[in-house]
């Protein structure tokens, strides 16, 4: 609470400065020199993101049509009301009339809006039916929501078998903690380590599911948003018509890091896509870890540090101290224990109803590496080394 009040005090002093600065309309953006992010949000964007799919274009049109219709009705109704407010005031000597019922009028203003509503429903039906047709996809990708990252698996089509995890750039998460001060990049909170790569002009079907709680896969420029629900498989589709980078964010509250699980889709030409698939295949073959390999402490610490930074640091912090309900790893009895199975089991199964999620999606080598890392970092100086084979053995129990 004390730190909150300190921060509140500093915020209040800031607020005065900012409120003053707001008089010059662009003060905030000038201070941070923010630019539009192509494929992502623009500075002070007023309307839907520029469409790169037919469906998104249709949504734009539908939205514009509704806006015009609603604005016209709004102006018409309130013009009448304000005319009445102006003319039918007591202060200008208007005497009240005595009418208070008219079945004809009531019927008219029930029927007319009803017809207008039907008029609105027709184009909406057309767009909706088109947007729900996920058949005949060229490429099928499964997007799995994890707390708090996206897993992408290429299920069918060119690139079948590729799979990877996509996480917010660690430096952006740190920037957020530091109050996003200084030189903040335009893709703040939207930059990921491994973007989803798809070919242009191909129908891509996205199957969504989740590992823990409900997330939502959304890319505004494509006009798609689909909840990713644990235990269920749902789908949506898009056919991007432009090459480029497109961004979205998780749109369903999924816990504390909800703001930090962006979606970055890279749309590339057919050729580039083929090259990318080829590259991924080679990388995968090279990276394929032999779970029976025996590691040295130095090598496995280096690997573990990376695994820790992209998976664990968000909650347990880079210093291993945890925060609030998040348990510290530094000096944790489980981490220090000579019996490795306790910690391996914690990572594989999760703890506290998923507050500490299960990490069984990570490879044996990654789990062994991160455990070895925590056992030999900060004040933990156990010298213990966990080999992938131990994780493999524990996993098969």
């Amino acid at each position, binding site marked *: 609470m004390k730190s909150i009040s300190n921060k509140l005090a500093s915020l209040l002093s800031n607020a005065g400065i900012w409120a003053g600065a*707001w008089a010059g309309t662009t003060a905030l953006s000038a201070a941070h020199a923010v630019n539009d*992010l192509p494929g992502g949000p623009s500075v002070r964007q007023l309307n839907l993101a520029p469409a790169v799919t037919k469906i998104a274009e249709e949504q734009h049109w539908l939205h514009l049509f509704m806006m015009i219709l609603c604005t016209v009705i709004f102006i018409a*109704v309130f013009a009448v009301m304000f005319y009445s407010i102006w003319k039918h*005031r007591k202060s200008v000597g208007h005497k009240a009339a005595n009418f*208070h019922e008219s079945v004809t009028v009531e019927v008219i203003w029930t029927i007319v809006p009803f017809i207008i509503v039907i008029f609105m429903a027709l184009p909406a039906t057309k767009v909706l039916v088109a947007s729900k047709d996920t058949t005949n996809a060229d490429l099928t990708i499964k997007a799995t929501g994890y707390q708090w990252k996206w897993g992408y698996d290429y299920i069918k089509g060119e690139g079948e078998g590729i799979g990877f995890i996509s996480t917010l750039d660690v430096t952006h998460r740190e920037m957020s903690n530091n109050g996003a001060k200084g030189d903040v990049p335009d893709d703040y909170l939207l930059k990921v380590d491994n973007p989803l790569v798809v070919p242009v002009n191909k129908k891509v079907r996205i199957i969504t599911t989740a590992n823990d709680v*409900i997330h939502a896969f959304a890319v505004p420029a494509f006009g798609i948003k689909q909840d990713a629900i644990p235990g269920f498989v749902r789908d949506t589709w898009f056919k991007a018509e432009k090459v480029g980078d497109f961004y979205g964010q998780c749109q369903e509250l999924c816990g504390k890091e909800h703001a930090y699980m962006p979606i970055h889709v890279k749309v590339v030409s057919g050729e580039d896509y083929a090259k990318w698939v080829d590259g991924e295949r080679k990388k995968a073959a090279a990276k394929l870890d032999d779970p029976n390999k025996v590691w040295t402490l130095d090598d496995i610490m280096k690997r573990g540090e990376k695994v820790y930074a992209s998976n664990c640091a968000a909650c347990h912090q880079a210093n291993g101290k945890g925060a609030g309900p998040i348990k510290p790893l530094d000096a944790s009895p489980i981490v220090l224990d000579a019996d490795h199975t306790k910690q391996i089991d914690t990572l594989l199964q999760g703890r506290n109803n998923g507050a500490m999620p299960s990490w069984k999606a990570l490879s044996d080598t990654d789990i062994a590496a991160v455990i070895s890392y925590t056992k030999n970092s900060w004040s933990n100086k156990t010298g213990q080394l966990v080999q992938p084979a131990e994780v493999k053995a524990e996993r098969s129990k």
Partner: protein
Amino acid sequence: MSAVLDHHDHAHDDHHDHAPTGWRRWVFATNHKDIGTLYLLFSFTMLMIGGVLALLIRAELFEPGLQIVNPELFNQLTTMHGLIMVFGAIMPAFVGFANWMIPLQIGAADMAFARMNNFSFWLMIPAALMLVGSFFMPGGAPAAGWTLYAPLTLQMGPSMDAGIFAMHILGASSIMGSINIIVTILNMRAPGMTLMKMPMFCWTWLITAYLLIAVMPVLAGAITMTLTDRHFHTSFFNPAGGGDPVMYQHVLWFFGHPEVYIMILPAFGIVSQVVPAFARKRLFGYTSMVYATSSIAILSFIVWAHHMYTTGMPVTGQLFFMYATMLISVPTGVKVFNWLATMWRGSMTFEAPMLWAVGFIFVFTMGGFTGLICSMAPIDIQLQDTYYVVAHFHYVLVAGSLFGMFSGYYYWSPKWTGVMYSETRGKIHFWSSLVFFNVTFFPMHFLGLAGMPRRVADYPMQFADFNALASIGALGFGLTQVFFLVFVVFPGMRGKGEPAPQRPWEGAEGLEWEVPSPAPWHTYETPPKLDRSATKVIG
């Protein structure tokens, strides 16, 4: 009937002799006016607490990056802001209005079940303490959003259980309040006060009370299943055991959609009384207003899944819920047209109640139109769970329910306190609320269209300017409500101001204006004889 009344007459003298004083008057309160006052004070306190949480949210979102709260606390703030405002502020406030005004408007001596009335109020205190106190429990307050979606609720700490228990108690209190209102309206109207002569406020509350009885048990069921999933290894909603998290959403929104009408229909009722009073002309289309309100209530049961377009319903399901939702705009439109026709060729003056009522119609209609836009499934795919939705429901709940209540406060407070509020202060309150409300929530439409998700503690830099603007507006809106408390409510409670005449408004009609100001502790102990319009006492 007459035997009962005679008996009442006897009891009457005793009543006056033993009128409790001091704290006993409030703790043992059975008088509908005292209980109404308690409800209103309670809900205003909760409004202030919920408002402080809202300002903390807006302070954090004032600029990008985390400054004053961490993401865990941020989620607790958004969750508790929602729960406190819905269950602690808006709903009890309308029950307070109902307690004060329904017996006065129908010529009844009190509510039907006076002791249950006391119980339903005092039940809310422990519930509120438990709800607010959950911030101090290990792990902090519930942080799964006010909709408490599973399976996120299954990850929450012990405060989730406290929250669920508090919801149960508040639900029980609401159900008791509703039963009391229904029985009072159906059985205790003065002779000659037929249903179709009843003031609109009583009508809208009668319909609201039925909605409450129908849906509060549904909410109780949903959160009880969450509770057993959390502790007794059931798997209603837990996918790890084969449960269905989407089922939770269906059950919650089967409660949740009627709930939004529970929060708006009484405000419709207040506005339907204020507009004719200040237009000095009878309400246009009384009968159609009653039918429109009933239609809205019935339709509200078949539109729930429009909150769930992105869960991946089959296309036929989406179409059904889209059509049904769009249909609600028809009776809602009828209400707006009726208010307009009431004003047309009237003789209008614009004292504070009328300003709030006109402000209500103006801003609520904007919320209605954004609702129509959200109802269209293909557009909603873009807007679901973005700030557009936040803007939409604050336009209907703040500019709708809250503005309606302020209109009601200024309209009826002379009858409650016996003094007139200061017209200048009422106008300051209205105009600054209207301006700051729009400064806060209008930019959120743009943020939503641009894709900013709701319930995020931090956001991309491009969203910064509109967020800063919204935060400034929120601070102004909050301070305006403190102004209302200090400069309008407190003087009224202390009896400072011009003494209010029995009928302070030239065009006001109804039985509440047939008793002196302030209304005596007991009114209509014997049923009044009414004129043909059932708006005047003739003997």
